[in-house]
């Protein structure tokens, strides 16, 4: 199905199942321990051996000598595979650094060997016997030091290029009120709860991997390229994923090493990346240095807005797209953005939940708060004054739907924004300094091609198959709801099967495109199935109404079961898109409100209240969508207050590479959270009229927290995370 004209009335609009706050279809399995994650697939292939991965102990250099003899002879060991044993390997299109290194080392904890043994304990003990002699070389590990050598990112992608509209330097120079500040955001880790894990089994030339991956089809392609085998010989299965957040978008070392280990040991192999390996071995959100310049008239109209960002990555990698939202969020005739990329030798940077916007808005929305104060304006009033209904770079190109103003207004009312003191440091509650902060949320709505197959079986069960993944997002449930709505059956008559490359290729889970795109693919397949059913029953499919387990046409009413008396019926299709996302800017919007209390003596920050108001098209399931948003708010609170991969700039690695050193929010850090979805449908996005919401929730939260801390204390910390050591010497008099 080609979606190239705005959606009109369709069966989803009935909203009997779609749009209802249904419990997760996979809920009972998950709460009873019955959902099987990758490492737990012990019955898919007999005689599984255990793999254990050894990571490089240096960040840059070469392996002079790698002695695996002792490991190979250790009890229970079946095979040891290094780059030498593996033979020629290519690299996946989406990988920057190699997944099995040697002799060249590109980053710390890059995998250099996998040991396969009868038991986990034996594999781990044997891995400790591998002797490595490195020739270490100096590398580039400090972004601030590398900043002067950073250059414009390579490639033709326009989103990587500098943008210039009007005369930014002139307008900024002549603006009566201006801000020019530099901010930093640190490297961050996805820190999903389930480690990257894989069971790999070969049958002749055919490889099956049961793994934990967001993008099944990408993994098939990149694994085939890495091994140099046809992609038809690879099957990837990923039914349950214990969190991804972008960290499982790509083929990673667990898949490759399990496959290589299984080939060498001639046995199926299971392995998980050890937790202390994950943060340096896999990808992370790169640190940024960002400069924002805003010029405005005295009454608050932005006349010039500029945003520059510096970040680093392995050679051949890309920048953190921290300036992208600034091209679209606020009006202003004179504008510029630019990104500069430094070649560095830290582990590979890549996408983490809302890549670009998450760190970009932490900075832009703090700058907007600072600018509002300079203007003597309320931060919401300043934002609303510079709101726009068109792409500020191309005024003839409208947003498909933009209700940022309502998000702020609804939120301000609900949160009690009027009680905020415009002067910081005024609100005292015992030992606590209390403040309110606000920020805009903004994230583009991406649409992706997505396929599905639906089958109405003779038992009356509707089965949906697509290689779409559920990383906690609720895909099982919203896909089931979509199919139930389209065929007019109850949700308990639908079985959803996901995450298998033998199913039609889907959009996968990333960039908050998964929910809208994958359900649109299921919609397309269901349209085909409806046609097949109508034809079988001899009625005109355009007049058929599917409801209550029946097909109605005129005054006829036929049970669905009639259509499948002889054989099951199948519908399969792929949703593809025209240019509606080019003629119209499709984005999602929100407003975050945060109340913090800062201990007047210790500068410890506690979040007291959080509210997000979101405008994101049709909400397919308010229960799971709300969970997506509160989860993103939690991750945003972490980014504001605690999350930071500490870089050892001499040895070139992230020091705090486990879940104790890398602090993420825990129960005690997060208060009750409130989410409001504005009621709306966006007919430009897809037949579902939905948009993404999973990343919108993290966009802007960090700045709202930091702005609340400023309102509480009068201290502006421009280097995230806002920890107490950066505030203590500036705290207001505790007396």
């Amino acid at each position, binding site marked *: 199905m080609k979606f190239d004209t705005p959606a009109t009335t369709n069966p989803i609009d009935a909203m009997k199942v779609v749009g209802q706050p249904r*419990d*997760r279809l996979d*809920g*009972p399995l*998950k*709460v*009873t*321990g*019955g959902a099987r*994650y990758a*490492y*737990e697939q*012990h*019955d898919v292939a007999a005689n599984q051996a255990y793999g254990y991965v*050894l990571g490089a102990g240096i960040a840059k250099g070469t392996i002079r000598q790698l002695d695996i003899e*002792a490991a190979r002879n250790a*009890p*229970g060991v079946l095979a040891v595979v290094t780059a030498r044993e593996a033979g020629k390997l290519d690299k996946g299109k989406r990988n920057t650094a190699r997944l099995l290194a040697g002799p060249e080392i590109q980053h710390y904890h890059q995998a250099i060997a996998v040991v396969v043994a009868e*038991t*986990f*304990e034996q594999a781990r*003990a044997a*891995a*400790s*016997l591998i002797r490595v002699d490195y020739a270490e070389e100096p590398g580039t590990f400090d972004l601030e030091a590398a900043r002067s050598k950073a250059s414009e990112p390579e490639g033709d992608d326009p989103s990587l290029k500098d943008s210039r509209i009007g005369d930014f330097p002139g307008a900024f120079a002549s603006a009566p009120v201006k801000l020019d500040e530099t901010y930093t955001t640190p490297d961050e880790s996805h*820190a*999903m*709860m389930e*480690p990257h894990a894989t069971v790999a089994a070969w049958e002749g030339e055919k490889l099956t991997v049961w793994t934990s991956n967001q993008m099944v089809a990408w993994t098939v392609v990149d694994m085939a390229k890495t091994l140099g085998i046809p992609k038809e010989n690879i099957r990837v299965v990923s039914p*349950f*994923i*214990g*969190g*991804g*957040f972008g960290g499982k978008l790509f083929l990673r070392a667990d898949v490759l090493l399990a496959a290589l280990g299984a080939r060498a040991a001639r046995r199926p192999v299971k392995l998980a990346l*050890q*937790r*202390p390996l994950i943060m340096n071995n896999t990808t992370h959100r790169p640190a940024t240095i960002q400069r924002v310049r805003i010029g405005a008239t005295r009454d608050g109209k932005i006349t010039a807005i500029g945003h520059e960002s510096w970040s680093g990555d392995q050679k051949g990698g890309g920048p953190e797209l921290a300036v992208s939202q600034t091209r679209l969020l606020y009006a202003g005739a004179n504008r510029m953005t630019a990104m500069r990329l430094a070649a560095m030798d830290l582990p590979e940077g890549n996408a983490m939940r809302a890549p670009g916007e998450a760190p970009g808005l932490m900075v832009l929305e703090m700058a907007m708060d600072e600018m509002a104060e300079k203007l003597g304006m309320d931060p919401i009033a300043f934002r609303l004054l510079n709101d726009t209904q068109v792409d500020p770079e191309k005024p003839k190109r409208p947003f498909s739907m933009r209700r940022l103003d309502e998000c702020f207004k609804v939120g301000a009312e609900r949160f009690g924004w009027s009680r905020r003191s415009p002067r910081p440091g005024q609100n005292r509650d015992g030992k606590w300094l209390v403040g309110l902060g606000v920020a805009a949320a903004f994230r583009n709505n991406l649409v992706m091609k997505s396929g599905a197959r639906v089958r109405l079986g003779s038992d009356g069960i509707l089965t949906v198959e697509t290689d779409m993944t559920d*990383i*906690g*997002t609720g895909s099982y449930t919203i896909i089931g709801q979509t199919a139930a709505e389209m065929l007019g059956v109850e949700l308990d008559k639908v079985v959803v099967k996901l995450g298998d490359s033998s199913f039609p290729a889907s959009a996968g889970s990333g960039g908050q495109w998964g929910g809208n795109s994958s359900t649109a693919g299921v919609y397309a397949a269901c349209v085909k199935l409806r046609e097949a059913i109508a034809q079988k029953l001899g009625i005109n499919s355009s007049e058929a109404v599917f409801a209550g387990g029946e097909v109605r046409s005129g005054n006829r009413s036929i049970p669905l079961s009639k259509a499948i008396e002889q054989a099951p019926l199948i519908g399969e299709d792929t949703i593809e898109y025209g240019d509606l996302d080019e003629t119209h800017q499709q984005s999602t919007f929100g407003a975050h409100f945060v109340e913090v209390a800062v201990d007047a003596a210790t500068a410890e920050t506690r979040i007291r209240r959080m509210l997000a108001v979101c405008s994101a098209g049709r909400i397919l399931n308010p229960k*799971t969508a709300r*969970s997506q948003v*509160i989860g993103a*708010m*939690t*991750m945003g609170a972490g980014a504001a207050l605690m999350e930071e991969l500490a870089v050892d700039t001499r040895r070139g690695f992230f020091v705090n590479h*486990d*879940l*104790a*050193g890398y602090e*993420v*929010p*825990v*129960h*005690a850090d*997060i*208060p*009750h*959270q409130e989410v409001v979805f504005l009621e709306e449908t966006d007919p430009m996005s897809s037949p579902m009229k939905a948009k993404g919401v999973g990343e919108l929730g993290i966009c802007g939260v960090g700045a709202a927290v930091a702005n609340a801390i400023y309102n509480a204390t009068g201290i502006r910390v421009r280097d995230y995370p806002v920890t107490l050591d950066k505030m203590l010497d500036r705290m207001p008099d505790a007396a």
Partner: protein
Amino acid sequence: MNRRDLMAAAGACAALPLTQGGARSQPAPAGKPVKAEVSFTVNGRKHALDVDTRTTLLDALREHLHMTGTKKGCDHGQCGACTVIVDGQRINSCLSLAVMHPDAEITTIEGLGTVENLHPMQAAFVKHDGFQCGYCTPGQICSSVAMLDEIEAGIPSHVTSDLTVSVTLSESEIRERMSGNICRCGAYSNIVEAITEVARTRA
């Protein structure tokens, strides 16, 4: 010392043998693995195992008994995904060797309820959507069931303001006591609602 310092200190100790000179300085494992017999009861069923003495309770459950409901998130006692109830107390099963639990009564997530007959806490997690990816969920549920018993037994926590009176159930008590169970999907707000609902019906 707060809970983070405690966790960090525990983490540092656990990491010591690895960080001192890396893998190189580890003692070489000599000969065949040392095995030992141990028997304990899991969810009411007695199991006798002959395990490598290095096997954690977590791996005994997952790899030997194939009870994979208990999750391995970090294998270092940092995340709580492996929480099980041993002789009435919640523990991180990754920080405990299987052979340390002869004759123990162990309850895992599989022992609390089934898909057809959910434990009230499991049902409340579904109702309040107290999870997303589901990987920390068995640990959160086992932890919360044992945690409510701790409050009932009058065991104070860091946020208990008065040690001379019995502990009262509150959201801050729940949050403090559940902070050893990390949920990266960030379902905390919903988890606290689920636990609170169960606690109210128990009381």
